[in-house]
């Protein structure tokens, strides 16, 4: 059976990685619960707990599987993933002007979240396939084509956040396989050249968000409101935070999307700079440990999987934290392991499972 776990594997479980993840999850649920103590608050926290439980089961399942098998099946996953994305754009549920969700029984699921994992597996499969050795311009073109399709679908949903996250993951994997900086630079230039095209694809509200990043007071009533309120929330936490009851910004609902994308602002207001330091340390620990696993792996597939997953974590957490603290424009990326949302939690834990799977099989 897949779930039969080798004792030797168990010895190699990375407790640091798991520990950091669990600390983050715990702080996230605490923040959700303290958002509105009472029926609504606790029901959100409870639902999140259910997803955490599901996610942990998925983590164990993924970790106990040999990632080689998963990479081997990557093309199939890829086709299924693109199919799901297509299904969403055809019959998905509209929420806040975007079709990102699919109904699975009573639950809604976001295929674009799952696609992040498929993307990583596909990259690992692609760059370790015999026909792509050594990586040539032709194989780079193949990559471009294979990744362009889902990227367009995701952008169309529109889910700018997911699309933007996939790019750094791709760059990290390209750097990892040793693509020359000059070639990367060329790709970058090409991307910049395509940007005006992307601008045309973007929805008005997405353009507005980018423009507001350049000039936050462009529209203090609309989009910039989020940025300003988040900054006030974080800043007013000061060194030690206001505690649960004093967090007026979060509690009084000034913060928009406070339980999803802006959950960090809630945490920062309640626990202050010191609390944030702990949380950021946990994220940094997770990311550094992920890179360490990548470095310590000899198997090329394991390397790329570990690198991709780590890059995904690093990008998501840095972009989300950067946007909430006003360093980056608001692009709607959830904070992994912390934001409220089932798909995101499930996929983040599955990604950790992949990382653990690589780690446990490092010394084969």
């Amino acid at each position, binding site marked *: 059976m897949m779930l039969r776990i080798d004792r030797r594997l168990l010895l190699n479980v990375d407790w640091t990685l798991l520990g950091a993840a669990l600390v983050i999850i715990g702080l996230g649920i605490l923040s959700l619960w303290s958002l509105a103590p009472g029926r609504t608050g606790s029901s959100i926290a409870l639902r999140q707990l259910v997803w955490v439980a599901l996610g942990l089961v998925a983590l164990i399942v993924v970790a106990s599987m040999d990632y080689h098998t998963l990479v081997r099946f990557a093309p199939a996953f890829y086709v299924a993933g693109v199919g799901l994305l297509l299904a969403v754009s055809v019959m998905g549920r509209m929420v806040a002007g975007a079709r990102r969700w699919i109904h699975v029984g009573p639950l809604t699921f976001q295929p674009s979240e799952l696609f992040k994992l498929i993307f990583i597996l596909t990259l690992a499969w692609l760059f370790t396939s015999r026909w792509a050795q*050594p*990586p*040539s*311009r032709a194989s*780079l073109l193949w990559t471009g084509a294979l990744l362009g399709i889902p990227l367009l679908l995701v952008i169309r949903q529109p889910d700018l956040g997911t699309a933007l996250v996939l790019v750094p993951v791709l760059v*990290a994997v390209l*750097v*990892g*396989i*040793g*693509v*020359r900086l*000059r*070639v990367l630079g060329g790709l970058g230039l090409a991307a910049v050249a395509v940007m005006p095209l992307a601008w045309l694809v973007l929805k008005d509200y997405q353009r507005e968000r980018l423009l507001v990043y350049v000039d936050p007071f462009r529209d*203090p*009533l*609309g989009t910039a*409101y989020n940025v300003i*309120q988040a*900054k*006030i*929330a*974080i*800043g*007013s*936490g*000061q*060194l030690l935070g206001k505690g649960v009851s004093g967090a*007026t*910004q979060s509690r*009084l*609902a*000034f913060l928009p999307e406070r339980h999803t994308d802006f959950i960090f602002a809630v945490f*920062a*207001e309640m626990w*202050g*700079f010191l609390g*944030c*330091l702990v949380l*950021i340390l946990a*994220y*940094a620990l997770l*990311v*550094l440990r992920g*890179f360490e696993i*990548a*470095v310590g792996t000899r198997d090329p597939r394991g*390397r790329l999987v570990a*690198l991709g997953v780590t*890059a995904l974590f*690093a990008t998501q957490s*840095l972009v989300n*934290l*950067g946007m909430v*603290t*006003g*360093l980056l424009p608001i692009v709607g990326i959830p904070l992994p392991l912390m934001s409220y949302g089932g798909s995101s939690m499930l996929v983040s834990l599955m990604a950790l499972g992949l990382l653990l799977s690589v780690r446990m099989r490092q010394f084969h």
Partner: protein
Amino acid sequence: MEVVARRPGERKDAWSRRVLALTAVASIGFLFLVGQLWYLQVLEGGKLQELSERNRIRIRPVAAPRGVLFDRNGLALVDNRPAFTLSFIPRELEDRSSVLARVSVLLKIPYSELEEMLARVPADSLRPVRVRRGLSLEDVAKVEERKLELPGVIVEVEPQRVYPTSSFAAHLLGYVREVNDEQIKQGRYRRGDLIGQTGLERLLDEYLRGQDGGERIEVDALGRPVQVMQRAEPNPGAQVVTTVDRRVQEAAERAMAGHAGSVVVLDPRNGDVLAMTSSPAFDLDRFTGNLEREDWLRLIQDPKYPLLNRALQSQYAPGSIYKVIVAAAGLQEGSLTPMDRTYCNGQFHMGGWTFKDWKAGGHGHVDLRAALVHSCNIFFYQAGLRVGPSAMARYAKAFGLGGATGIDLSGEKLGLVPSPEWKRQRFGRPWQAGDTVNTSIGQGQVLVTPLQVARMMAAIANGGILWKPRLIQRVERVDGAVLYSEQSAMTGHVDLSPAVWAFLRGALWGAVNEGGTGGAARVAGLDIAGKTGTAQRIAKSDSRRGEDHAWFASFAPAHDPQVVVVVLVEGGGKGGQVAAPIARQVYQSIFLERVAVAEIRSGG
């Protein structure tokens, strides 16, 4: 050019180096973050803390103005005006008990009432809870002066219903009141919503309500608005063009002043309701402000039932008006002819009972026409026996009695047309000749509503068409787009031969113009045809028993009928003496010009 760099000997370390480079990039990102947090929370923290203290945002609903109702000539029947509403914002009531106490003293509202209102909503709600609508300017000034002592108390400006006079067309328009708990449970309304509870306001509520807007206002620590952050404009309710003629409605209400009863004015050509009154009425104004509980109890426990719409929710014996049905049935069926004569000495004996005429000594020799003109009971006792109870019932039903008129207002009573079958089913006893005698002059078990009588008169006036009484012409958005429109609808037809119609109209004309019972309705320059009725009250053993209901059912001009006027005065006495003069006033208002010309001619 090679895409991937290859340096022999370095292969093993190359991977580590590249990953380390990526690690360095990520680490720099985390360091930036910590730096930004240090800047925001420690360096700027004090300033942002202050900002958060002052950061108070209120989300205020902006009530949509309720749609306006117009009469057929474009005059407003009900409109809106801005009014002041006192509200609490639960979350901002810092010292709840002392703020409530102050408000209680200031505006003389019982403390317990305020507490009760707040108990219904969550204590941390930001949504204002309306405490009192329709504040006087004086009260507004009182609250504004003490604003600093009243955190969480605000005065909002909201549109409120305003009526031409406080009880104008009260039953027709209906009142608007805050939703009650029952209605909230149905889930369609939010607490504090104003909805139409009766009449047209209720019927058309969906159209009239519009959609509330909202705004997000930033306020300072004292609750003064600093800026409007976001505003969604309310969507005003749709306006309604009714069939009512405000002038006629007003005249009818004036004429009924001091009486209990109802006036219904219809257009017999299409069934339009031109006026419909019910008195005593209630003050619509009282509902829009805060109706005190005692006032409400007083209203619903009032022995005069002011909330009842007597035009369609009260049933009365039709009295002599029913004789028109008996005559129509008899003539059409052949059991009566215009030549039938009888001698009326004021008494009619049958089976040991004596039935009397209303006129002591009787009317002498009468034929069918004279019997209608003078409303001779003795003639109709005999006529009724000839026509028979089943035929009478059949014709009464054909004229729409004992059935719904189909008017859109709710709570319509059906009335009752007794027949032998009905009596057997209802009481298990056979129909007696005495029942026929009673029924033939509209007494006994017969019950009708003023609206039914009006429809019946309209059918006589227009040659047999029963219209559904139409109240609404159309509903249109403020921009003029028509959302709903209603055409006149025929719901039935009475088939009588032209000679019978002509006879009936002629007899009704005679009742007003040939010294008949309806003479008091006469208006110079106008031919009115009508029938009086005096209905004995259904015997109830209370003190109000005794006075009869006065009816007058009519149409004019007799040869080209344009309006039907039906008047019912509860406990008014004789129809000819009480109801007919009221109808006269209504006609004078409708045919103002014609009447004026006639008066000038006769004067000159």
